[in-house]
């Protein structure tokens, strides 16, 4: 049934200057890395990662990026939105693994959620942002017992000054060995992580976001070169071996008319 289900927003919170979180009840359960399409009648419909599923409610963390997301930021508690999904693949882990998480931007949501589920894993959480105010969900992440919180900011206003990818590489230089790397965020950040992981032969999972319309494998807008597979069904979460075969990863994506846009 791929029609939007209309729900009422229960809670809204300004999480960072760019990002608001929205909580609502939803009948289907999801896994970290999956996404929904959120519909604002008369405006548009857009894909959003599920930031948290508590077994009854979803949280979405939405950054104001353009017209539709700005309109989403204007929503209030009790307003109606349409939701369909969950769609796509999700992150995977095994008990006892040593995991490095490298989220950027709204990627902090799904990684935090995964960290709450992977209680038997030891997680180094390399949260990165431009400055302190943009470190999404930092307070919640810090509190998790299975997590070592290692934030970084470009301006040094919190944690280590610099990029989270550098931070993570320093840990590896110090001899820390990871069984798995989880990354989600800006594509060029993930691309850097992907290259390092391939070189060091560390398993890695990442989230390849492409322009989505149907979200169920029909429109073809999210197909990637040269494999031609859809990122709404066979992604967004892919392992690094598959990512290595996606020639456009880290190079370009396509807009709503299918034209290539370089990163």
């Amino acid at each position, binding site marked *: 049934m791929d*029609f939007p289900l209309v729900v009422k927003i229960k809670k809204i919170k300004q999480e960072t200057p760019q990002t608001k979180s929205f909580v609502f009840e939803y009948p289907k359960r999801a896994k970290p890395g999956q996404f929904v399409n959120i519909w604002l009648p008369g405006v548009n419909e*857009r894909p959003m990662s599920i930031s948290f599923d508590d077994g009854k409610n979803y949280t979405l963390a939405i950054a104001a990026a353009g017209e539709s997301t700005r309109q989403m930021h204007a929503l209030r508690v009790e307003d109606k939105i349409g939701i369909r999904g969950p769609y796509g693949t999700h992150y995977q882990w095994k008990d006892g693994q040593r995991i490095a998480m490298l989220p950027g931007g709204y990627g902090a949501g799904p990684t935090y959620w995964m960290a709450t589920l992977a209680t038997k894993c030891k997680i180094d959480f390399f949260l990165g942002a431009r400055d302190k105010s943009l470190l999404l969900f930092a307070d919640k992440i810090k509190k998790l017992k299975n997590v070592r919180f290692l934030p970084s900011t470009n301006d040094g206003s919190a944690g280590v000054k610099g990029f989270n990818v550098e931070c993570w590489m320093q840990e590896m230089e110090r001899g820390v060995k990871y069984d798995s790397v989880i990354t989600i965020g800006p594509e060029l950040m993930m691309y850097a992580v992907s290259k390092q992981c391939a070189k060091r032969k560390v398993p890695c999972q990442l989230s390849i976001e492409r322009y989505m319309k*149907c979200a169920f494998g*029909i*429109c*073809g807008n999210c197909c990637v070169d040269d494999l031609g597979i859809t990122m709404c069904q066979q992604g967004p979460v892919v392992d690094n071996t598959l990512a290595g075969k996606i020639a456009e990863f880290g190079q370009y994506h396509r807009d709503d008319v299918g034209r290539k846009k370089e990163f």
Partner: protein
Amino acid sequence: MADLSVTFCGVKFKNPLVLASGILGITASSWRNVVKNGAGGITTKSLWLEEHRGHPNPVIIANEHYMLNAVGVPDAGVQKAQEECGKYLAWKSSPLIANIIAGRVQDFGKTAEEIAKIKPHIIEVNISCPNVEDEFGKPFACSVGDAAAVTREVKKRVGNIPVVIKLSPNVENIVAIARSVADAGADGVNVMNTIGPGMSINIDTRTPVLANKVGGLSGPALKPLAVKYIADIRRALPKLPIIGTGGVLTGEDAIEMMMVGATLVGVGTGVYYRGPQVFKKITDEMQAWCKKENVKRVRDLIGVFHNGNGRRFEP
């Protein structure tokens, strides 16, 4: 194993299944992946001369009964089409049917001419899209005169590349339209595009779900309509090759379409109901049926309905 190959307008297909236009149809890589999944050929999403923006989302909704779409035929224009089609053709994969669209008769000609330069195996002309009516008015497929005019204009500009006209079911007399395009030089017809447009209202928000409000209907319920129209056209114009499209989900569906007169069978919404492997599933089911019925060559089934007794129908 039965021989599933067919020849359509002089082009050989390893099996009769072609990806319908507008489904997984934007990039060469996607087309090749569809062929890997078992299709005998692919049709591109409708191609415009210039960039054409689609409708805002939601553009496609679906449930167990039907799919409703108003994607609005987005496309980046002919340069991107040439790049993607060229890339696909260089792989020497299965045949490429380039589907073109335009808002005016002359523009069909110009688009066809540009697309002909990359030498697709077949050019299909979409004169039947119900989703750009606000922009261009009633589709050309709804008038005998317009349909013929577009056909003549395209035929003039594409040399010896076969031209297929994609018909609309939303007309009073589809046989008359088929006859008019055949008389104007069409090498074949595709029966059919989506029906409608239809509309779906979300009762909680009291608004239409599709941003375009209305959209073309597709899916399993289309099949009996397509079967009837194909049979009618085949009876009236036994020499006109037909691509049968509409609601095909299974091998049995495909064989039914062939029996009434389709040489090729388009599969669109079937991808939604049975996943990207739908083509392989359908050809497996065709094989199983052919084995059960002791049919050696699936092409022998084309049009047998009109013979009444299952013997090969010789046009």
